C-alpha cells in the first residue's frame, strides 16, 4: 500500500471502528443506535428527522461551529508541535493561560473598540506561547520530557489562573464580570444568522490559523526545518538546522495557537472569565483532533469538526434518551485506534496479501 493512501486510510478506519464501538455499546445497553445518528445529524445541521416539518434550525450548526473553533485551534497547536517531534500535552494549560491573560487585560485595561479585541487576541496568543516556553526550555536545557512537565503545568495553570481571576474586581466564585464589549468577538449579526447561537467572529481567527498553519508547514523554509526536525533530529542537525531552536520555537507557536483558543473562548463564547473547578479539556480535545487529523491542516479542520460534533450533540443525545457519554466513548475510542495503528497496518497488509493470493489462485483456477 502506498504511504499517502495509508495516511488517509488509518484515521478513516479508526473513525469507523470508533463509531462501531459506540454502536455496539449502545446495543448492548439496550439503547437505540438510530437515536445516535439522528442526534448527530441534528447537531450538525439542525434538521430533525422526527420533526421534518421544522426544517433546518440554524442554531445547531451555529453552536456546532462554536465548539469546533477552539478545538480546531488546539488541534493545530498540538499538531504543530507534533510536526516538530514534540507531544504538547500541555496545550490545556496554555489555553487556560491564554484565557487568563485576555480576561485580565480586558477587565483591567480600557481599550477602544475594534483594536481591543485584536489586542486581546494577540495577548492571549503571547500568554500561551510564554507558558509553552517553559516545557520547551526544560526539554532543551534539562532534557525533561515535555509530556510530564506539560501535565504538571496544566494543573499549575488551572489553579494559578483561578487565583488571579478571583482577585479581579467583581469576580465571584464562578466567574469574573463581563469583559467590555470592545473586546468581545460576539456579534448580533452572526447570532441572527444562526438562530441566536453564540457563533462569533472567532471563526475568522480559526480560518486564518488553519491557512497559516498549512502555509508555514508546507510552504515556508521555517516549516521545512520544523518538519525535518520532527522526522529525524539527527538528520536535521546534519543538514545544518538548529534543532534546539526549532524545538523551542515550535512549542511556543503551538502554545500561541492554544492561547488563541483560550482567547476566543473568553472573547467569543462566554464573554467573561471563568473560575474553573475542572479543566474544559480543550487542550486534550486538541490532542485527539491532531492525532486523527494526522497533524495536517486540512485533516485537523475535518477531525475538529468530527470531535466538535460528538461534543455538541451530547445534550441532544441525552434529551433523546441516549447517555451523552457515548460521544466521549466514541471519540476516545477513535484516538485509541489511531494509537494502535501499528496493528491496523498489520491487519491491512495481511488482508492485502490475502487478497493478492486469492486473486492469484482464482486466476490459476480460471486458466484451467
Amino acid at each position: 500500500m502506498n504511504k499517502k493512501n495509508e495516511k488517509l486510510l488509518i484515521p478513516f478506519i479508526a473513525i469507523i471502528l470508533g463509531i462501531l464501538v459506540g454502536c455496539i455499546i449502545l446495543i448492548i445497553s439496550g439503547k437505540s443506535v438510530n437515536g445516535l445518528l439522528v442526534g448527530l445529524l441534528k447537531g450538525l445541521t439542525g434538521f430533525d428527522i422526527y420533526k421534518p416539518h421544522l426544517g433546518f434550525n440554524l442554531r445547531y450548526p451555529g453552536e456546532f461551529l462554536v465548539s469546533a473553533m477552539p478545538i480546531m485551534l488546539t488541534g493545530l497547536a498540538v499538531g504543530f508541535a507534533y510536526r516538530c517531534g514534540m507531544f504538547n500535552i500541555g496545550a490545556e494549560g496554555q489555553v487556560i493561560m491564554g484565557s487568563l491573560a485576555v480576561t485580565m487585560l480586558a477587565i483591567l485595561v480600557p481599550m477602544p473598540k475594534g483594536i481591543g479585541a485584536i489586542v486581546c487576541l494577540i495577548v492571549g496568543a503571547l500568554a500561551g506561547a510564554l507558558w509553552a516556553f517553559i516545557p520547551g526550555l526544560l526539554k532543551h536545557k534539562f532534557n525533561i520530557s515535555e509530556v510530564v512537565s506539560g501535565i504538571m503545568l496544566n494543573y499549575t495553570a488551572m489553579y494559578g489562573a483561578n487565583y488571579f481571576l478571583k482577585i479581579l474586581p467583581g469576580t465571584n466564585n464562578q466567574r469574573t464580570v463581563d469583559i467590555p464589549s470592545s473586546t468581545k468577538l460576539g456579534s448580533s449579526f452572526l447570532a441572527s444568522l444562526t438562530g441566536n447561537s453564540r457563533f462569533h467572529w472567532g471563526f475568522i481567527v480559526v480560518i486564518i490559523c488553519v491557512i497559516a498553519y498549512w502555509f508555514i508547514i508546507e510552504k515556508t523554509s521555517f516549516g521545512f526545518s520544523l518538519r525535518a526536525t520532527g522526522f529525524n533530529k539527527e538528520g536535521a542537525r546534519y543538514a545544518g538546522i538548529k534543532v534546539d531552536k526549532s524545538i523551542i520555537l515550535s512549542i511556543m507557536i503551538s502554545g500561541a495557537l492554544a492561547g488563541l483558543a483560550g482567547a476566543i473562548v473568553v472573547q467569543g463564547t462566554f464573554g467573561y472569565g471563568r473560575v474553573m473547578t475542572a479543566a474544559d479539556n480543550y487542550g486534550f480535545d486538541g490532542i485527539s483532533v491532531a492525532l486523527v487529523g494526522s497533524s495536517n491542516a486540512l485533516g485537523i479542520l475535518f477531525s475538529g469538526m468530527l470531535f466538535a460534533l460528538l461534543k455538541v450533540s451530547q445534550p441532544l443525545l441525552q434529551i433523546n434518551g441516549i447517555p451523552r457519554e457515548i460521544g466521549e466513548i466514541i471519540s476516545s475510542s477513535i484516538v485509541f485506534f489511531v494509537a494502535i495503528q501499528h496493528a491496523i497496518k498489520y491487519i491491512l497488509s495481511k488482508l492485502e496479501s490475502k487478497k493478492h493470493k486469492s486473486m492469484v489462485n482464482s486466476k490459476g483456477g480460471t486458466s484451467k
Partner: protein
Amino acid sequence: SSPTGSTDNNQTDKPAEGCSVLIGLVTDTGGVDDKSFNQSAWEGLTQFAEENNLQECIQYLQSDSEADYIPNLTGYAEEGYDLVIAVGYLFQDAVDTVSVQYPDTNFLFIDSESLSDNVMSAVYNAEQGSYLVGVAAGLKAIENESKMVGFLGGMEGDLIGSFQAGYEQGVLSVCPDCVIYVDYADSFSDDAKGQQLAAKQYGAGVSVIYQAAGTAGNGVNKEAKERGDVWAIGVDKDQYEDGKVADGSSIILTSMVKRVDISTYTAATEVLNGTFEGGVMIFDLTNEGVGAELSSGRNLTDEEIAQIQGYADDIKAGTIKVSAVPTIANGSTN
C-alpha cells in the same frame, strides 16, 4: 420512594409523544440524588407527574460543568419543552441569556431572580430557617459544654451567605459566647473536601456543624457518622435518614428544610393549567417555604423544640428580624 427508581424511565427514554406538557429540569453539577435541593426540586416534579399521570413527560439533565448550563437549557427550549427549570443561583447568566432568546418557553429559576417575564423566580429566605437551626446548634453546644459550632458552605456568595447569616444569629441568640467556625468548600460537589473540612472543625472541638453545600455537605454527614459523637445539621431536605448509624440513631440534629419541591410542583401545575406567569415567588417561614425540621422523638428534646418554635413565631411576627448578611469570614471564627 427512591429518587433513582422513579427517574429511571425519564432519564433513559425519549419522552413520549403526545404529552400535554413537557418539562425539563437542569441541575447544576450536583445530581438529582444530592439529598439536597436538586433532589428536592426533582421530587416536587415527580410528585406533580405522578398525580397527573405524566411520568413520561418530565426529564432532567445534569450539568458536568458551568460550560454546560447554557447548552442544557437551550437544549430543552429548542426541543419545545413547555417548562424549563434551572436549579440553583449558579444559572443566573444562563437563565438571563436563554430566557430572552426563547420568549415562548416558560422558565422556573430557583434561588435567584431573573427579570424576563417568562421566568418564574423562586426565592427562599433561607436565613430564617437557618436562624432556627442555629438556635438548635447553640442549645446543643451549651448542653455538651463545647460552646463551639461550625458552618460549612458550598461556595461563597449572597445565597449561601444568607444561610450563614441566619445561622450565626440563631446560635448567638441562645449562646452569645459560642465560637462559630466558618469554612467554605469552594464547591457544591466535592464531598471529599466537605469531609476534610468537617474533620478539621470537629477535630478542633466543634460539636455541631451546619452544612449548606449540596453534595459537598454530604461529606460533613459522612464525617459525623464516622465519629458518632458529634452532630450535623442537614440542609434543604430532612436528612435524618441519611444520618443513621449502625445503632439506628442519627447524627442529624435537625435539618433546615427548604421546600424547593413546592416551587417546581407549583410551576408545573400552573403550566399544565395554562396559568403560568413570570415573576418572583418568595418563600419564607410564614408560608412554610423554609423552616427547621422539628419532629419530636428525634435528637431534640421537646423543650428544645418548643424553644425553637418560640423563635419561629417571633420571626413570623416580625419581632425578630433576621439579617441575610454574614459577619464571619471564610476560614475564621467570630
